[in-house]
């Protein structure tokens, strides 16, 4: 059924072509009478197309592509430059940081030394003052003791005079007494 309808279609086509065609019954693509017109119009249209492509369209697209390539490579170079700049500033920052750290260390050490020196001098001063007052105190003590010892001698002779006077009831002179005391304490 398919085949019969298809066959009918083609035979009708052939008939139709014969009625309708410019040159009766020829399969249109092989109809030589149309060749000259087709060739001439192909030459005109394709010729125009070729020149338009060669002169206008292709240089234009080519330029666009080239511009883009240039721009991209330029941008890459710029990016590289910026990266180097960044690296350099990072290095500079790190160096500055380590310098600052070093400086801080030095300042700390200095402050420490100064503080220690101040403390030492203070202590020395205090110690000197202490030693001075100690000495003063010692001399005072010595004086007092000497005075006390002198008093003791006086008291001893007085007491001895009184005791002797009581015991022997006689009168002894102070000189004899002193002689006797110095003899006794010798």
């Amino acid at each position, binding site marked *: 059924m*398919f085949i019969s*309808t*298809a066959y*009918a*279609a*083609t035979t*009708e*086509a*052939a008939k*139709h*072509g014969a009625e*309708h*065609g*410019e040159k009766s019954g020829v*399969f*249109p*693509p*092989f*109809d030589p*009478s*149309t*060749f*000259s*017109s*087709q*060739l*001439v*119009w*192909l*030459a005109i*249209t*394709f010729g*125009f*197309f*070729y020149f*338009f*492509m*060669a002169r*206008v*369209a*292709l240089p*234009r*697209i*080519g*330029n*666009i*592509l080239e*511009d*883009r390539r240039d*721009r991209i490579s330029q941008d890459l170079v710029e990016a590289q430059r910026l990266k180097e700049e960044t690296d350099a500033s990072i290095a500079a920052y790190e160096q500055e940081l380590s310098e600052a750290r070093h400086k801080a260390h030095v300042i700390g050490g200095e402050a420490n030394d100064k503080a220690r020196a101040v403390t030492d001098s203070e202590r020395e001063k205090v110690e000197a003052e202490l030693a001075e007052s100690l000495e003063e105190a010692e001399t005072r003590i010595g004086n007092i003791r000497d005075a006390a010892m002198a008093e003791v001698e006086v008291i001893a002779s007085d007491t001895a005079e009184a005791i002797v006077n009581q015991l022997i009831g006689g009168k002894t002179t102070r000189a004899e007494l002193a002689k006797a005391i110095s003899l006794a304490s010798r």
Partner: protein
Amino acid sequence: MANDPIHQFQITKLLPLDVNGVDLSFTNSSMFMVATVVLTSVFLLWSTGGRGLVPSRSQSLSEIAYEFVAGMLRDSAGSQGMKFFPFVFSLFMFILVANMFGMFPYFFTVTSHVIITVALALAVFLTVLIVGFGKHGFGFLKLFVPSGVPIAIMPLVVAIEVISFIARPISHSVRLFANMLAGHITLKVFAGFIVSMSTMGAVGVVGSLLPFAMTVGLTALEFLVAFLQAYVFTMLTCMYINDALHPGGH
């Protein structure tokens, strides 16, 4: 006659013109050639008008076409071949757009006429001959003498090479023409089945779904063929140009 699968190839005169007995009429074929050229030119010009660093969609289409053809030519003919880039690009775009125009119902397919494809193939063939002999003189004949072939069978090989070289414009043109012609006829025949079967009652209407599915599939296939034949034609052109530039092989 809706069912006539040949009718679509009929050339009709729109403006009859006769110069000294030579028919130069402006026909439907001429009209579609003009449409092909104008549409392509206008699109390429319009889409690249912005000259965008970041391309718009249409600009990227033009750039893709450019780089596609440029890559094809550079790969097969080397950087020397880029001299022929405008020619190869024009061929590719002309054939592609003409084939695609042919996919519209009621539109005429310029490339379904053998004289057009023969003319294009001969243009390529003559370019190859002129460039080949112009560049290498008789050295171009080295093309027919492959290296590394034993002397004994050399005459045979040379004969085969010469015949295949002469057959080039024929195969080059007939491939494109026959593909476009056969594809369009097949499409029309299957589409015709839908109409004739659906006149045969309910069974016919249901049965006509088969050729309908076939027509849908064939349409997709024809779009592929329309692109592929333009690609193949251009690819072969690139290879022939390579022969003209480097007849002794790379």
